[in-house]
């Protein structure tokens, strides 16, 4: 090789750009294959991830895949911001049954999962942490399934709002339980109080500050969707970085950023730009990497417990929504659909699980196996449930409404009128 120094050395090094490109294209192809089978695209992305994992470890690029979390973080930032932006506090005030439903379904999920895991002899704190993590619905899955189905209506709107709320509640409860762990492990009351306090206040302040910054900048540039889109994406990615650097909660900070950026009246400097197509790039990679990172061997050690957790969680979600449906004037059919739409469990749960494992590795071993196995199941079952729910509610766009042929349509016979 020495005589041809301009030639690359073999084998080629696998760089981030190449990895991103490969994951993106492979994920997209998997998604379209799923689409042809009338399955949600996400199922395709995740299955590609499952398939890539063994190949990756054989090629020894596992570490690179771990490093690729940057893509995952950007994707999560975008999705949390989007869901936060959709959370309309004014609506929660006008229809209090929505907040009640959220608290109700979360409480029910927590109780059922906690009881089930306790019955399986998990320690109370472990069961509690798993139960709290189970409260969260995956915003990325619900958002993407709704986008793919072009779903519009009350079930879609309520599902996205409830997702934002339960992500919020789950991260708050997990943080509080972690403080308890703190205390139990180290008997350090000051830290046990100050840490969650720092997380809440710091994350909210970061979200608020970024929203203010966004508005201030938005007020100084032309009101064009392209410019505002760039601004929003830039600030979202920066917020993720700041939250990580400041050891804050990415979930809380980005939800808060989204929520605060949606000002009322004069506060609407920042346009409600559509993040859809561009953020799809990151979402595809997010799900492929998520699929690749889930250790399927967790089923062997924790299969039964995971099955119990998944069942208890589903029962809690559906029963919780059903119980509060009459208060909000939600019909039975819509409530069932809404319950199904809240089942996906993916990125947020994974993120929370990561937090727990990072802070207390010794504490989280067995818990991690149960959660990871549950998440692996829900990566496939969740999108299916959400897609079914939105269809069942009649909110998905018909496959080809416009393409109906006008066979034998006699003008007058239609009795058409406006």
């Amino acid at each position: 090789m020495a005589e041809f120094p301009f030639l690359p050395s073999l084998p080629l090094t696998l760089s981030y750009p190449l990895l991103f490109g490969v994951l993106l294209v492979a994920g997209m192809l998997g998604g379209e294959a799923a689409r042809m089978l009338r399955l949600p695209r996400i199922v395709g992305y995740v299955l590609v991830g499952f398939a890539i994992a063994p190949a990756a470890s054989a090629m020894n690029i596992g570490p690179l895949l771990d490093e690729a979390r940057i893509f995952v973080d950007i994707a999560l930032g975008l999705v949390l911001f989007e869901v936060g932006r959709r959370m309309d506090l004014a609506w929660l005030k006008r229809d209090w049954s929505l907040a009640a439903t959220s608290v109700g379904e979360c409480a029910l999920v927590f109780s059922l999962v906690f009881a089930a895991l306790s019955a399986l002899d998990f320690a109370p704190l472990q069961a509690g942490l798993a139960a709290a993590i189970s409260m969260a619905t995956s915003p990325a899955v619900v958002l993407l399934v709704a986008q793919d189905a072009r779903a519009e209506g009350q079930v879609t709107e309520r599902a996205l709002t409830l997702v934002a709320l339960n992500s919020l509640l789950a991260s708050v409860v997990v943080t509080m339980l972690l403080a308890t762990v703190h205390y139990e492990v180290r008997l350090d009351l000051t830290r046990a109080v100050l840490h969650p306090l720092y997380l809440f206040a710091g994350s909210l302040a970061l979200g608020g500050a970024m929203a203010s910054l966004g508005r201030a900048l938005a007020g100084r540039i032309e009101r064009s969707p392209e410019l505002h889109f760039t601004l929003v994406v830039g600030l979202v990615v920066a917020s993720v970085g700041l939250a990580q650097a400041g050891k804050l909660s990415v979930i809380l900070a980005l939800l808060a950023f989204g929520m605060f950026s949606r000002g009322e009246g004069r506060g609407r400097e920042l346009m409600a730009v559509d993040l859809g197509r561009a953020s799809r790039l990151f979402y595809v990679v997010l799900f492929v990497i998520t699929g690749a990172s889930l250790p399927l061997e967790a089923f062997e050690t924790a299969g039964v417990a995971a099955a119990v957790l998944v069942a208890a969680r589903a029962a809690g979600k559906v029963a919780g929504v059903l119980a509060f449906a009459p208060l909000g004037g939600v019909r039975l059919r819509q409530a069932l659909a809404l319950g199904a739409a809240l089942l996906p469990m993916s990125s947020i749960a994974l993120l929370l699980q990561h937090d727990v494992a990072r802070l207390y590795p010794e504490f989280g071993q067995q818990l991690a196996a149960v959660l990871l196995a549950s998440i692996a199941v829900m990566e496939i079952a969740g999108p299916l449930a959400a897609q079914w729910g939105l269809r069942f509610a009649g909110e998905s766009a018909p496959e080809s409404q416009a393409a109906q042929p006008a066979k034998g349509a006699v003008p007058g016979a239609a009795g058409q009128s406006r």
Partner: protein
Amino acid sequence: MPLEFAKSDALTFGVELELMVLNTRDFNLTRGAPDLLRRLEKAQLPSEVKPEITESMIEVNSTVHRRFAELREELVRTRDGIVEAAGKLNLAVAGGGSHPFHQWSDRRIFPTERFLKVSALYGYLAKQFTVFGQHIHIGVESGDDAIYLTHQMARFIPHFIALSASSPFSQGEDTSFETSRLHAVSAFPLAGHLPEVASWDEFNRYFDEMAGYGIVASMKDFYWDIRPKPEYGTMEIRIGDTPLTVTGAAELAAYAQTLAADLLRHRRTDPIAPRYLVYGYNRFQACRFGFEAMLADPGAHTHIRLREDLMATLNHLQRLGDELGTADALRAIGDRADRELNDSRWLRERFQETRNLSDVVRLQAERWRDDPGKGAAQAPVAGLRAAS
């Protein structure tokens, strides 16, 4: 079989208003009508609220009235009920003739048998027909009167266009028209105006002939700007955009009622044919230029500015307005014409301020909700509504 014309009391009146159903994020049209209508089933509203061709529209049908003030009060009450129900569903509702930036292909046909048939027959025209108009019904005692009034009212169609115009934007762009909505209507094969029949009998012969060709089955198949409505015993003016406020809608109905009263009292005998020769041209002028339109006057062989023609007509109707209780409405209309302040101008000004159509629709929805304020239904309708 001849069409039966249901007799009704002369000069009773009512309106139909087609309204936008919007999300509260970017104020695009959204598929909210099914949920909103279901919620409204339980509400005790004075007017009826019905589905329309796509799931982002609802239609309000008022009851029959004699006085402007009563109609206005009913519309305010209905509006308050709809706004409240929409709020619980995180939806917004607005007036205006067309949505400024929605993509017609995103719309979904409301799945009733009739709308699905319309969609199957007309293809993309059906979804393009997601535009929002006001229909005004004026009661007449006979089919002959309905024919007479339909022909006579054709002369005043430009006034209604200029006064109601509230659709300057379409598919995200300024169309340069005061109303772009009417282009969606004109595309239908049976759009246009009533043929030059002189009586209800003659109209029936025309209808039978058209039915014989298999082109129409009922009056609903004619998408005319003004048409007799035998089922209700009315003449129906369908030219107007839905105004941005319920007051605006009631005022237009009051103008139509007063005009009809004058036309029925002082029967005109001038020939119909020349009127229809200039009809399309004048209609275009009003759509494009609003109050500044130059209308061809077939009798005088001159052109006259629409605003001046409207002011002269209002002047002429003044005494009748006092008698019918429409004086306030006529004064408000005159004031608007005088200051050239129609809803299209209001929308363009909001766009100048915000540079963003989402914000324009948000302000449009706020105006629909707040102007006149809640509880205005109880207040006496004295005094002039500020035009903006």
